[in-house]
């Protein structure tokens, strides 16, 4: 097993936190994992992305050109990365903010209406957590319990207050998609 994931969006959306949680959870699951965030000048202009590779054997290059799974949280990233997704790959995007349409027959597309998921959370803006929940449900690469443990271990003490809300949002994103087979999902969401 080897999954190559790119998570992309704008600065401030918590893209790197998404990547870090996923990486940490994979580590807790005993998998090999690398996480390569965008840095420096690439962060100018407000974009952020993060490459996470999860595998059951040693990982070579932590940098890839074509991901198997792409998670996008804004239009610019959708445009920049969707063509790079490998054939047969999965595209998961926040349909509340992404309007661009790149139509590809050879990939599976999962729309996640993050705003709807967040609506019951009283002003919470953690679309990244909703997307993470959906990501875990769709890909089943890491255990959701490991993601929760990761959240416990890496949330800085000054953000402790957000911990339970984040878990609830992840859970809601997760249950909104869990148990729905990919092919029907795609059909449903397309229709």
């Amino acid at each position, binding site marked *: 097993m080897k999954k190559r994931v790119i998570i992309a969006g704008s600065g401030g959306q918590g893209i790197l936190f998404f990547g*870090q949680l996923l*990486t940490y959870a994979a580590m807790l699951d005993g998998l090999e994992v690398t*996480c390569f*965030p965008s*840095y420096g*000048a690439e962060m100018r202009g407000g974009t952020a992305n993060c490459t996470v590779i999860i595998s059951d054997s040693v990982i*070579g*290059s932590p940098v890839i050109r074509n991901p198997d799974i792409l998670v996008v949280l804004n239009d610019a990233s959708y445009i920049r990365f969707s063509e790079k997704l490998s054939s047969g790959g999965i595209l998961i995007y926040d349909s509340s903010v992404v309007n661009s349409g790149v139509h590809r027959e050879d990939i599976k597309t999962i729309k996640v209406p993050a705003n709807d998921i967040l609506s019951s959370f009283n002003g919470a803006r953690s679309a990244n957590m909703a997307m993470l929940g959906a990501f875990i449900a769709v890909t089943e690469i890491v255990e959701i319990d490991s993601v929760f443990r990761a959240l416990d271990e890496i949330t800085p003490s000054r953000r402790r207050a957000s911990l339970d809300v984040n878990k609830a949002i992840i859970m809601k994103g997760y249950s909104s998609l869990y148990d729905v087979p990919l092919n029907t999902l795609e059909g449903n969401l397309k229709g």
Partner: protein
Amino acid sequence: MNKALMKGNEALALAAIHAGCKFYAGYPITPQNEIPEYMSRTLPAWGGAFVQAESEIAAINMVFGASACGARAMTSSSSPGISLKQEGISFLAGAELPAVIVNMQRGGPGLGNISASQADYFQAVKGGGHGDYRLLVLAPFTVQEIWDLTMLAFDKADEYRNPVMILGDSILGQMMEPFIPTPYMKPALPEKTWALNGCAGRQPNVVKSLFVGEGELEEKNYVLQDKYRRMKAKDVRFQTQDIEDAELIVVSFGIAARISTEAVSMLRKTGKRVGHFRPITLFPFPEKQIHDLARRGAKFIAVELNAGQMVEDVRLAVNGKSEVLFYGRPGGGVITPEELYDRLKDEC
């Protein structure tokens, strides 16, 4: 032991602190800013001093001063900043002072870019500054190895009384990867009787790199050369993958080695007799090991993120005994395993 998850840069900083680094000075430059940032947060609590210097020149000279006082001292930077440090590094070598210098390389020449690069290989292993000197150069390729080799760097610097360089790159510095933060075990090392710490109860010490007396500097140079010979005899480090029956051996270090192992594994699956040789010490270079493999008839290809630098050392080691090819991309171009696979598949 539980695994930790950190960026390469941060793991490096923490390893330095565990290894007893008591002084750090640096100047901001991408992609190594996490090192000074981490040091500024953490080093003082461990009884060390952090200084954000006014330039890389000042930083290396602060390290020069701290090291002369006997402290384990480190500075870090990336390519342009390392160029500025060269005079100071030469002074450290001339004065036989230990120090750890980290270069998280970026694309060059000039301001270049901040992508991963290995274009400072020559500068790192051939001297870099003026004079006949060498650094012991360590090239980690995982965050685990960054942790381990940083600790080793401090020990080797003290053992040889010589600056040691850790040669990384943007990707290694920026990437996160789980690693086991093994505790630091200090080996037995000679006391720093030469250190400047006040001459109470002894004759004054002088730390200098100026030797103007008749034949004095030549003598000093023989001492240095002897030290570099000892490094060659004792401290060559490397790792191999599938070389036993290999007809083609990829030679690469650092981030290029990660890319190479992947390409080599892909080729092995198709039945190709290809192997991988990874120098961990770039100086001393594993020349004897490569020479022996060449005599066995293996062909070599050096893979680097530059226009061809380490390949020259591979050629010197092979010394005409077999063919040496090169594949690389300069200017921060990062090779993918697939790209390398395509390049290699027709060579074996």
